[in-house]
């Protein structure tokens, strides 16, 4: 049954669970891939927007300088007016730490600075082809990154000077600080020379101020690879060993690169949540499948178990047991068929019993005919002869003895039949086993002589006492010895021997007869079983019954062609016959 259960579980697993798990794995993989792509695309979009903002920031600053330049050149302002205007611009646009106006030769004309201007006209600007020059990020006196934007002033296509603004990148930081992707995603700006310009993570901002920026920094390496044509999105461990999703976008106006970093735990949180939900749904489906499968299988297997139980019950002899099957399926049909089969078995069993009874009756009848016909015939002949030869005293006496002898036989047959059905009345007294065996041998010597074989007793040297019935024991000995004589060919030997072993005493009756086949040995003590051609076969059965009623046991060992040995075992008794006790 376990195997059926196992197979049934395997069936559910392969038919329902395995496909569901495969579906789950495929779904989760697809979902993860799609969502990750979506998150990357989203962050790339954010990075692009940030880059646009930065470009706008730079562009706006350029426009401020251009606007200032236009006002300065177009209106022929006095120096004090230029000076005030520069100061007003610095106040109005806090991105600028200082704005200075240079003539075409690079001499300072006016400045927002109170004292000497800190800003110089970038040399590269003077040689640049474009009218706008953005200097590479540099570290100022305070170890902070800064840059300058130079805008060329022209009038009638002639270079009339430059407006140069020094940008305090703290303003850029404020803008970057306000950029948030999710809860903790942030942006950072990497300059042309792979120097960190701004970092949206307040705790990482100190890296900007560090004079030696780590070239092994994962973000900077990523930017380097990106600029070399690498992919715009990647994942890496930052210096806090946190797995980050990073995307990059260029700021074309300046050559800077925007990196948007977001912890993958946060970036892919939705993916993870959806995966979790999907896995939960699949797990629930699996659970439901298993529960339903279990209960459904249970109803299926339980009926098989019920069939098994009924089969066993019938095997134990409870022929009336039947299986009650529910449902309308093949199992129900199997149950019905089983019940029909059981009904038929009962019928067949009754038939067999009837046949057995008939056979038994026939055998008993044949046995009775065998056992009784000869004595009855002898009695009948004697009766007829008595009538014919009634005058002869000697004949009458002979016929009388014949009738009495045959009647004893008839009576014994009838007693045997009666003793089969009810307990044999026994009178138990201390009996000397040697004596009882010797008496039986003496009584059976005529039979032995008639059969032409030797019958002898081998008795123990000491008396062996048991609690027994002398007459019943004699009957047992007679049965065993008679059977032995009948089974032994002329010239053979039949011995009745006694032995004592501690608290037990034994009588062994053995012969050198034909022996009993082993397949019949087990049944020889049953009623109406005989190894002889004729007869009721009650002798050994009654002998066994007597021995067991006397507290003993009887066993047989036989070998075909060599002989048979019956061993009767009794408990020794300490009691003694009354006569002995009295004497």
């Amino acid at each position, binding site marked *: 049954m376990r195997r059926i259960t196992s197979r049934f579980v395997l069936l559910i697993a392969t038919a329902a669970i395995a496909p569901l798990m495969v579906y789950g794995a495929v779904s989760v993989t697809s979902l993860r891939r799609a969502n990750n792509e979506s998150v990357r695309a989203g962050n790339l979009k954010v990075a692009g927007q940030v880059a646009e903002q930065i470009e706008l920031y730079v562009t706006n600053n350029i426009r401020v300088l251009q606007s200032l330049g236009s006002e300065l050149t177009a209106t022929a302002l006095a120096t004090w007016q230029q000076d005030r205007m520069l100061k007003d611009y*610095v106040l109005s646009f806090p991105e600028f730490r200082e704005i200075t106006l240079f003539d075409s030769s690079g001499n300072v004309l006016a400045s927002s600075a*109170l004292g000497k201007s800190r800003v110089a006209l970038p040399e590269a600007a003077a040689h640049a082809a474009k009218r706008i020059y953005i200097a590479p990020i540099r570290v100022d006196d*305070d*170890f902070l990154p800064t840059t300058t934007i130079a805008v060329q002033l022209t009038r009638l296509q002639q270079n009339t000077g430059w407006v140069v603004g020094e940008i305090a990148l*703290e303003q850029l930081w404020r803008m970057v600080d306000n950029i948030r992707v999710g809860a903790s995603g942030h942006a950072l700006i990497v300059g042309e020379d792979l120097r960190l310009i701004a970092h949206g993570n307040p*705790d990482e901002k100190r890296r900007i101020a560090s*004079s030696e920026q780590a070239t092994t920094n994962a973000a900077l390496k990523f930017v380097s690879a990106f600029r070399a044509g690498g992919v715009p999105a990647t994942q890496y461990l930052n210096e806090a060993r946190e797995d980050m999703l990073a995307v990059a976008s260029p700021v074309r106006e300046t050559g800077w690169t925007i990196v948007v970093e977001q912890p993958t735990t946060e970036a892919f949180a939705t993916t993870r949540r959806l995966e979790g939900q999907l896995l939960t749904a699949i797990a629930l489906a699996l659970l439901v499948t298993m529960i339903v499968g279990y209960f459904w299988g249970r109803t299926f297997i339980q009926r098989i178990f019920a069939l098994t139980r009924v089969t066993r019950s019938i095997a134990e002899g409870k022929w009336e047991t039947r299986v009650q099957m529910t449902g309308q399926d093949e199992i129900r049909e199997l149950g019905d068929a089983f019940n029909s089969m059981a009904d038929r078995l009962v019928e067949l069993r009754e038939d067999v019993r009837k046949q057995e009874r008939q056979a038994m009756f026939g055998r008993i009848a044949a046995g009775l005919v065998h056992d009784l016909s000869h004595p009855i015939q002898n009695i009948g002949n004697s009766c007829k002869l008595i009538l014919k030869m009634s005058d002869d005293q000697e004949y009458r006496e002979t016929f009388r003895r014949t009738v009495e002898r045959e009647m004893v036989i008839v009576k014994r047959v009838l007693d045997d039949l009666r003793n089969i059905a009810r307990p044999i009345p026994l009178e138990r007294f201390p009996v000397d086993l040697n004596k009882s065996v010797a008496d039986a041998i003496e009584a059976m010597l005529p039979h032995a002589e008639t059969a032409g074989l030797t019958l002898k007793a081998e008795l123990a040297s000491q008396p062996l006492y048991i609690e027994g019935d002398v007459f019943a024991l004699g009957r047992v000995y007679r049965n065993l010895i008679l059977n032995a004589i009948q089974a032994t060919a002329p010239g053979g030997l039949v011995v009745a021997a006694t032995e004592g072993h501690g608290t037990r005493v034994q009588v062994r009756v053995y012969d050198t007869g034909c022996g009993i086949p082993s397949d019949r040995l087990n049944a020889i003590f049953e009623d109406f079983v005989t190894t002889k051609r004729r007869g009721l076969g009650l002798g050994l059965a009654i002998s066994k019954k007597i021995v067991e009623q006397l507290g003993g046991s009887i066993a047989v060992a036989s070998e075909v062609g060599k002989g048979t040995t019956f061993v009767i075992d009794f408990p020794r008794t300490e009691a003694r016959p009354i006569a002995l006790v009295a004497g």
Partner: protein
Amino acid sequence: MSLPAGQTTSTGLRTLIPLLTTEPLLTNEMDGSQVARLAQDWAWDESRTKLQLKLRRDVLFHDGTPLTPKVVAQALRARIAAHSVSSFASVSSVSVTGEDAVTLQLTQPDSFLLPDLALVSIAMPGKSDIGTGPFKLASQSGQQTLLRRFDQFYRGRPAIDAVEIDTYPTQRKAWASMMRGSLDMLYEVSRDAVEFVEAESAVNTYKFPRAYYIPLIFNVRHPVLKNAQVRRAINEALDKDALVQEGLRGRGRPAEGPIWPDHWAYIASAQSTTFNPDAARLRLDAAGYRIPPVTAGQMPSRFSFTCAVWAEDARFERLALVLQKQFADIGIDMRLEPLSATAFDERALSGRFDALLIEMAGRSLSWVYRFWHSPSGQVVLNSGYQSADSALERIRRARSDDEVRRGVVDLMRVFTEDPPAAFLAWQMQSRAVSAQFDVRAEPNRDILSNVWQWRPVAAPASVSR
């Protein structure tokens, strides 16, 4: 460390080191009242010309010498002789009047004596570097000073082993160093940087109202600025809220005068100037300062004056620009003259200036007296202003708190009607400390007042500034 505002590196160290190494007899609270420190109690006689100070008996100097009335009397006599604060001029003698008592005899009542005593650190006579503070001077060379913990500090053993003080030429440079993790504490976070420092989780910032105001001081000898109506008009023309927002990035509050608004004698309802540029124009017009026709190459202004600005402190540059813009709006041409600290001090003392943009202490009324009472003010500032002398003198000689309050009302009226300066703003100050320290900050209180109570959060460490 970035410098204490308005001071040079050397004067900054002169302020900070005594704060950690010495203790005064009393200290001034935020409201201008005094609390016990080395003196556990004090009492005036009825005439308020005799002040008895009862000293603590459990105080030791860094060299193990106990603090005794004799030592304190010696220290006070030395400071009085140096006229280090104005009220000491009223002290005729200092005497030991008991095992734990010192008595100061005054020639006349002086309400500034107690707040001035709070400004005087007690050091071993003749050994100014041996005090009673929580830390003792271990070494000093160049820009670095090392202080060690004083285990017998009477208020409790400091948890921090040592304090290293580094100086930086600018606040930006100092906070850049802080960002790099080279410092555990920043003396002052610049207004430009404070938002970044505040956002950093490895650093805690502590802001508190600083009893220092920024005035634009006028030289009343100036041909135009000598006119009180002009000075009053200038005060009316200034949008101080805008000055605080644009010039101080919102980290301050407009000043009505030189008296600390949280001072117990300050009366908010007293007369003050309100922002009214139209009234200012009318007042200037009435004073004869109208805007002239445009002249080539010159700004068409009612008048012009030059404002000296300390060039080495970037805080004043932006404030000066905003001021200049606001003055230009009513037709006043304020020219800016950046000066080095030395030149600035020289100008202030010599009186060779039109106007000064400066920072002044103002928690104690004695400081107001020191700056704006003409005979005393000439020690630090020579603006020629004398109008407030009478009111200031009345405050100084007041025998009761009510007299002080009445004097303050008079003083505020004088400063409104005849202002010696345009009082611009009181400042907020922020200090930054590494999150590795439990600072136990109290609201609106300078964290430097309890450095001895700071505790390293993790392993014992030293604090650098």
